[in-house]
């Protein structure tokens, strides 16, 4: 690989508190050699080929903490190759994959398979998570220690929640002993039973059973209460309601934990479901505009740490059904950054805060040396034309599944190039 020089670019690297115009030098080994305002045309040898980015932006490669990969078992929805290509088009260079595959990622041998597939087929960094319980049945704990030693980054039942409080406390105890990261999807099943969308006027109007916000709150309050006595690494995967933000803000002073939010819940509300649009059947569900605004505020004041795509590819057959029958989830890894930038363009959240929630914060929670542009680190980054307008068209999406929640949405800001270990793997 030749040495690469980029100049005249706005660099945002929250991990190193860099937010300035300057340049970036990538060494022949794919590592970052120099970065910042000190890198400019005056101190680069004139014989070298310099790329002038004309005021575009460079962000660290995004770290997406919640991605459903499809392998093994659902390769027809997404495989590691299609996932990588979709991720790269969205500036994402590291993902945490969910264990909700077929079979479920809950034992050592399947992890070995997964690591091999991820390494051979994926162009991005894949960090697999494993199930908290065997076959995500919510009854028997998996082998946190052994799985961790094979490269599992964290534990979650993905789309499911641990309902049994005693089991949850035991999981937390083991996690404390082994330094394990727990990621919980917060939903009380008794309260959300048969629910499809937010409980409220829209559900009443459409004649669909609702999922009340309190179903999320009960689990969050339960887990944070347990956490007071059992101090383990605990992360709430995604929240959706204003009340959850309020509780998290209040509890943050007492116990240590982190919180994520899906870009869907930051950008859309229940009204977008319109006339039974199954592509907007999501978990947690889209809630009211007041809830959405509270989530944006929570991101702004850093009550919420992480934005995820909650990328859940589903083939069209699973969505061309009645709302009750349709599967849950939306494909979103390609649009994660552009949709997040909407919050910057409309003045809701500072650009640096958004990038932090997409890069250094998730990396810190996961304890991985990604999502930063430190000198000597692998050069995973994206170049972004922050004002470039474009329209989301499902047929143009790279992901194998086209179930985007924002079909025909006009966005501003697009990734033009993505690099992994210094190598350009995506170019618009």
């Amino acid at each position, binding site marked *: 690989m030749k040495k690469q020089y980029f100049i005249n670019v706005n660099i945002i690297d929250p991990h190193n508190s860099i937010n300035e115009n300057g340049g970036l030098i990538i060494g022949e080994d794919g590592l970052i050699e120099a970065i910042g305002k000190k890198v400019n045309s005056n101190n680069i040898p004139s014989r070298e080929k310099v790329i002038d980015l004309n005021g575009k932006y460079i962000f660290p490669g995004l770290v997406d903490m919640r991605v459903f990969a499809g392998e093994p078992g659902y390769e027809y929805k997404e495989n590691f190759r299609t996932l990588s290509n979709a991720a790269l088009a969205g500036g994402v260079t590291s993902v945490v994959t969910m264990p909700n595959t077929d079979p479920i990622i809950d034992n050592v041998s399947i992890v070995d398979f997964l690591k091999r597939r991820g390494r051979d087929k994926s162009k991005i960094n894949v960090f697999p998570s494993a199930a908290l319980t065997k076959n995500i049945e919510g009854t028997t704990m998996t082998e946190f220690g052994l799985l961790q030693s094979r490269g599992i980054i964290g534990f979650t039942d993905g789309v499911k929640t641990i309902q049994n409080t005693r089991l949850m406390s035991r999981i937390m105890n083991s996690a404390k002993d082994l330094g394990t990261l727990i990621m919980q999807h917060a939903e009380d099943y008794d309260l959300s039973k048969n629910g499809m969308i937010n*409980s*409220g*006027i829209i*559900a*009443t*109007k*459409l*004649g*669909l059973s*609702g999922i*009340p916000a309190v179903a999320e709150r009960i689990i969050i309050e339960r887990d944070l209460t347990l956490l007071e006595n059992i101090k383990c690494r605990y992360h709430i995967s995604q929240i959706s309601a204003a009340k959850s933000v309020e509780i998290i803000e209040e509890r943050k002073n007492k116990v240590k934990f982190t919180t994520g939010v899906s870009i869907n819940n930051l950008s859309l509300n229940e009204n977008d479901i319109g*006339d*039974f649009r199954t592509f907007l059947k999501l978990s947690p569900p889209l809630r009211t505009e007041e809830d959405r605004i509270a989530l944006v505020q929570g991101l702004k004041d850093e009550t919420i740490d992480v934005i995820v795509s909650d990328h859940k590819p589903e083939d069209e*057959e699973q969505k*061309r*059904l*009645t*709302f*009750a*029958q349709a599967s849950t989830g939306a494909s979103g890894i390609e649009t994660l950054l552009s949709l997040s930038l909407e919050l910057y363009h409309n003045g809701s959240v500072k650009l640096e805060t958004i990038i932090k929630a997409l890069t250094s914060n998730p990396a810190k929670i996961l304890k991985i040396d990604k999502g930063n542009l430190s000198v000597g680190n692998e050069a995973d980054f994206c170049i972004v034309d922050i004002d470039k307008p474009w329209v989301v068209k499902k047929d143009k999406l790279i992901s194998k599944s086209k179930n985007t929640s924002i079909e025909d949405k006009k966005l501003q800001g697009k990734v033009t190039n993505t690099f992994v270990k210094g190598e350009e793997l995506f170019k618009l």
Partner: protein
Amino acid sequence: MATKTNKAIKISQKHLLGIQDLSINDVNLILDEAKTFIKLNQSKNKRLNILNGKTQINLFFEPSTRTQSSFELAGKRLGADVMSMNMANSAVKKGETLIDTAMTLNAMHPDIIVIRHQDSGACNLLSQKVNCAVLNAGDGSREHPTQALLDALTIINRKKKIEGLRVAICGDITHSRVARSNIYLLNMLGAEVNIIAPSNLMPKEIEKFGVNTFTDMKKGLKDCDIVMMLRLQNERMTSSFLSSNREYYEYYGLTPDKLAHAKDDALIMHPGPMNRGIEIDTKLADDINRSVIKEQVELGVAVRMACLKIFCE
């Protein structure tokens, strides 16, 4: 394709999916047309040939006695070729999706499809995939537009108007498509609507529909002109919405002493089938001075004839 007739006022919708989509002109058009069929249905020769050569498919995914037979009779009286499909024995059992069923039937060139489905929004999905008109005969807990229209016709037949009347709807509102369609229609026609239900059967934010809500039946019935009772489905007991039939009857069953809070000439309505002794006192249900339940069934045929005629055009 249906040949277009020259009518002064035309329906604004291609399909009848819900009362929500209709304008007041649409409603009046249907009700006026239905009135002309009431007499016909009482006469000796009940056969017309308005829909000669037209094909009507009844697609019932949920068991139904009165709605299905009412639609079938309505189509036959207008001269249409009516095919009723019992979906319990169909390809759906073999895993066919609603859209594929729709495509298959569409290839047979029907002029109208009547659908009843257990999922809310099923008729909307169907209407996007077929070329003919779709009539909703009940979708999940969302809408049952012809029931609301026949209820309105029954009220008009007895009370001459709807505007200014106070109507109580009582029972399992959460799971009731009849309640939703009636709320939309009665509001549109200028009635005041009281909703009576225990909190467990009261849908979230229903008051935003512009109705008054009551958990005390006597208060909710005060000075009402119309009392609409809804059927209580038995499965609601098993999932702990309620404690027992006995207690439900005590607090929400329509009995003479509760009815005394309504106006003296208040009418009793029920979409059927009834659970006598659970939501309604059996004598009240049969009281010819108060109950118009049989009339609802009779006018149901007229309303469905009107809908078939209008939406086939």
